[in-house]
């Protein structure tokens, strides 16, 4: 039994748990205590002195944020002496504070202003001391620092250092001259700042303020809670709106982001109200788009579908659903395809990112998703990051990794580039692109030979160990180091550190999955975790980080050619019968075509004639763009439904304007399998409609009436058909969402997977040989191209590209290249060059860096006609994921 301490606050008895402060107890019981510097997320510094209380066992006032109550003590939070002390703190703070509330940006959103009002402090200054007078630092593009309005609470510094793990801010000078600044007070240039804006979110006054594009007063605004539309972390925030314009984003201190955001979540929201948003349907006539009414557009689509169905049959249709749309929309879309078109030709960009995870983990463990929760990241004792640039692609999870390191966890990073996390890691192993399997086999060889493996776990919970270990024995670290281009010691040390972990977590992303044998890379990861028994426990497991806000959900609800919602196989008769009964139609049991094999690369056999695309941009995201363009040109009819006229929409015959996430209700499923709400904050822009409304209206026109009044009703249908979502409804997920599997309406959801038993029963060890990439450098194309993302942009820039200041940070396509390789090609920094591969060519700025190996270049895939003009479309045989991570290329100087 936990020991409780009984004590009194303002005459009423309360209990405190061990280590709970008086402030903690007050907060829990809604007793008001003013604070400036306190934040639940980091240790109290008792700097601001606002939280003073009177105690019966001391004659001086104590700061309640650090006061641990003793048995029987009596606390006064509201006595005259306490009030007087707080008033004094406020008077002193106010004395040096500029009196400009009437024009201050923080008016109405300022704790100093509020407390001055509550504690009846007159605006006339009682103490005659110098008012703070510092220069404003506006070197950051998204916010400015006005040290004159700073009350030196230090929250911004603590958030940046302790929570985000960046440490870009610090106090400078001392005494009354103290001010907060970036390093050396030289602005952003010498700073490690990543513009996440978490300092701005916690500032209690107007010292750190977003550079606003709209004039607004707090009293004119309203807030709507929703889920971030960028990466798979699924951060919770409030959209702050003036009228129908989003003017700010405020993080919420809750699951999963604990009040943190990254630059995209915090500042990249202006695309919502962007003037280029599609506002009415467009119909292409003689190569030119004309605005049309919904009726005209629907009539055209319905006619074309009927014609195509008659002429070519069901197999000529294909649909791309969207990892950006809600679960309800994806569900309805796959229903639309399977019922109206009679085809299972449904896919989306999950094919490009984690198709190999789904197949690799489903075969070895039984389900292809993150086994741990985001809240477990901080409690690992070892974190092994391989093929993920976590701090840029999943910044908030990256911050939690840094927090884990601060509390003693060891971090191992294996990557072709010395990414930010690698610089802070305990061990960095720099490997050549595409050599993961060799590294993992080498590590497992060491773990086996040094007897560091978990025999009991292997005996009780796994199968096929003997076949697997035979192959591992052929991979001594010396052999692997040669393949990976790293040191033997690196492999040995990585093995020892990982194996020593009691609560070790593996984090991976596209660096593991996007290979022509990506499924093997994933299975190799599963081997490593099972060998050491590091799976099926809290803070111990395998964690594929999903890239888009709802890529997990789009897969979960059946946006794939081989499965119905809940990963129920389309070719199984009992599954087919179940859905035929539920939907009242005949369905196809033929597995559909996947994204690349026939749809966006169908140029060769022209089997797809009619393509329906909802919120996808294959003309930028798919490999070998030249071929994708040819495939789209060969289609008879293309419908694109999107929020902007994207590069892909240009190829459409009809474009339907969709509403953004801020204009509709629904759910996203984040990377930790958590189904979370998004909420309508403004009316659809122009004549746009939410995707689910468009699909529902078309289904009704095409003879299968759908009359959902609200997305919650669609979720009820999903729950009735998909066992992993069975217990989900909007009431239950209103506050913090639920993590699937949720077996029934009373099930609490699943924090981590494979506890006691793997989803498939026994974990399957797989012998994996190192195969290497399909296209290796040769005389003609002597360099290796690898691709990835940057912090500032998202996917194909459809959204971040509309945010001017984000674009200013990374305006052009670029390559990263090291000095030795750059010298060989006589390249200067920032020079524009042509990069060629067997597929095509593109131009890029040269960024010379020391983070990448010889003869390797890195290019982000965000830019149209950029990296994917070069990438290789060779597919993994099991899951059709393309080898986006390795291609041979050559640099040609522009002269």
């Amino acid at each position, binding site marked *: 039994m936990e020991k409780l301490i009984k004590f009194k606050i303002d005459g009423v008895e309360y209990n405190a748990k061990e280590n709970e402060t008086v402030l903690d107890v007050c907060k829990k019981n809604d007793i008001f205590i003013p604070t400036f510097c306190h934040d639940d997320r980091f240790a109290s510094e008792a700097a601001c002195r606002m939280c003073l209380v009177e105690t019966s066992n001391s004659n001086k006032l104590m700061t309640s944020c650090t006061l641990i109550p003793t048995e029987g003590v009596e606390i006064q939070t509201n006595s005259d002496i306490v009030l007087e002390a707080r008033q004094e703190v406020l008077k002193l703070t106010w004395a040096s504070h500029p009196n400009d509330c009437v024009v201050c940006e923080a008016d109405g959103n300022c704790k100093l202003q509020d407390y001055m009002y509550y504690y009846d402090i007159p605006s006339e200054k009682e103490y005659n001391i110098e008012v703070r007078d510092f220069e404003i630092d506006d070197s950051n593009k998204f916010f400015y620092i006005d040290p004159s309005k700073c009350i030196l609470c230090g929250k911004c510094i603590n958030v940046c250092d302790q929570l985000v793990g960046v*440490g870009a801010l*610090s106090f400078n000078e001392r005494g009354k001259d103290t001010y907060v600044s970036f*390093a050396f007070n*030289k602005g952003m240039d010498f*700073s*490690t700042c990543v513009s996440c804006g978490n300092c701005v979110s916690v500032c209690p006054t107007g010292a750190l303020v977003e550079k606003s594009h709209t004039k607004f007063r707090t009293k004119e605004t309203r807030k709507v809670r929703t889920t971030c539309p960028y990466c798979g972390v699924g951060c919770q925030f409030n959209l702050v709106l003036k009228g129908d314009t989003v003017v700010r984003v405020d993080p919420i201190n809750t699951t999963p982001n604990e009040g943190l955001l990254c630059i995209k979540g915090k500042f990249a929201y202006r695309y919502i109200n962007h003037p280029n948003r599609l506002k009415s349907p467009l119909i292409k006539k003689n190569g030119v788009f004309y605005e049309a009414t919904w009726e005209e557009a629907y009539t055209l689509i319905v006619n074309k579908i009927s014609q195509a169905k008659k002429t070519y049959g069901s197999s000529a249709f294909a649909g791309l659903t969207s990892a950006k749309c809600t679960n309800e929309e994806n569900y309805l879309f796959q229903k639309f395809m399977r019922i109206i078109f009679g085809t299972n030709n449904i896919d989306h960009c999950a094919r490009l990112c984690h198709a190999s995870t789904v197949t690799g983990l489903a075969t070895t463990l039984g389900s292809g998703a993150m086994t741990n929760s985001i809240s477990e990241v901080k409690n690992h004792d070892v974190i092994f990051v391989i093929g993920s640039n976590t701090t840029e692609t999943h910044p908030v999870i990256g911050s939690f990794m840094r927090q884990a390191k601060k509390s003693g966890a060891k971090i191992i990073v294996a990557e072709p580039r010395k990414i930010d996390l690698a610089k802070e890691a305990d061990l960095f192993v720099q490997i050549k692109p595409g050599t993961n399997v060799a590294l993992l086999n080498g590590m497992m060889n060491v773990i086996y030979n040094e007897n560091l493996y978990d025999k009991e776990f292997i005996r009780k919970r796994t199968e096929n160990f003997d076949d697997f270990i035979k192959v591992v024995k052929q991979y001594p670290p010396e052999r692997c180091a040669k393949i990976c281009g790293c040191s033997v010691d690196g492999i040995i040390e990585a093995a020892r550190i990982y194996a020593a972990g009691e609560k070790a977590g593996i984090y991976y992303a596209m660096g593991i999955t996007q290979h022509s044998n990506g499924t093997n890379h994933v299975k190799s990861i599963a081997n490593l975790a099972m060998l050491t028994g590091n799976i099926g426990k809290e803070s111990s497991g395998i964690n594929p980080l999903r890239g888009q806000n709802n890529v997990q959900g789009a897969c979960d609800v059946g946006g794939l050619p081989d499965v119905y919602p809940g990963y129920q196989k389309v070719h199984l008769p009992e599954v087919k019968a179940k859905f035929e009964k539920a939907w009242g139609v005949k369905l196809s049991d033929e597995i559909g075509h996947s994204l690349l094999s026939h749809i966006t690369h169908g140029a060769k056999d022209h089997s797809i004639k009619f393509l329906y695309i909802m919120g996808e941009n294959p003309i930028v995201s798919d490999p070998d763009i030249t071929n994708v363009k040819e495939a789209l040109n060969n289609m008879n009819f293309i419908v694109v439904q999107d929020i902007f006229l994207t590069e892909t929409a240009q190829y459409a015959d009809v474009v339907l304007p969709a509403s953004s996430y801020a204009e509709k209700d629904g759910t996203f499923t984040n990377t930790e399998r958590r189904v979370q709400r998004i909420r309508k904050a403004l009316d659809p822009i122009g004549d746009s409609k939410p995707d689910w409304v468009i699909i529902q209206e078309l289904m009704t026109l095409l003879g299968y009436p759908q009359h959902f009044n609200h997305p919650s009703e669609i979720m009820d249908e999903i729950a009735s058909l998909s066992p992993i979502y069975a217990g989900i409804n909007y009431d239950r997920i209103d506050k913090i969402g639920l993590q699937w599997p949720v077996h029934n309406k009373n099930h609490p959801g699943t924090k981590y997977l494979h506890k006691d038993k793997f989803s498939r029963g026994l974990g399957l060890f797989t012998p994996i040989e190192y195969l290497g990439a399909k296209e290796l450098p040769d005389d003609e194309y002597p360099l290796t191209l690898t691709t990835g993302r940057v912090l500032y942009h998202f996917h194909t820039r459809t959204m971040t590209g509309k945010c001017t200041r984000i674009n200013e940070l990374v305006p052009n396509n670029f390559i990263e290249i090291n000095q030795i390789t750059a010298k060989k090609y006589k390249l200067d920094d920032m020079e524009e060059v042509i990069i060629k591969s067997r597929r095509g060519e593109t131009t890029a700025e040269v960024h010379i860096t020391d983070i990448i190996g010889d003869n390797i270049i890195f290019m982000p895939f965000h830019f149209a006609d950029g990296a994917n003009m070069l990438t290789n479309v060779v597919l993994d045989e099991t899951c059709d994921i393309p080898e986006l991570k390795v291609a041979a290329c050559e640099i040609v100087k522009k002269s």
Partner: protein
Amino acid sequence: MNHLKEIDLKQFGIIIDRFKDIKGPLIPILHEAENLYGYIPIEIQNLISQKLKISNAEINGVASFYTMFHTEPTGKYQIGICTGTTCHLNGSSKLLKHLEQSLDIKEGETTSDGQFTIIPVKCIGNCDVGPNITVDGRVHNNMNIKKLDKIIEDLSKR
């Protein structure tokens, strides 16, 4: 003190390594930098940041907090006028004012020719023979305006 000594990151890296494993290595390393360069150059602060895995903002915060560390280059000669209580009563404030006027800089600043910096000095425990001044760390006692002018004149001629 080595005026305008070239910054050698490799050499200073070795110095950092010497202190790396002691408890609280930052202050002693900053002292080494101050002694070597007369101030703590940004390049050196960044190097310390990388090697100790402490953010450069925090290092700059520490360096700017203590008056014995300088974050800007200082002059060839560092003159400090003690403004402790006893020296103050013995007229050191007048000496400081005089020095500021004759060098045309304020306390903490460096002359444009890079020759002199007036550094802030509090009590140095030599009160019985005050007012005291320090020249590159050496104490000169029983100071007056005439003697001060002579010291500056001699240093300028060197």
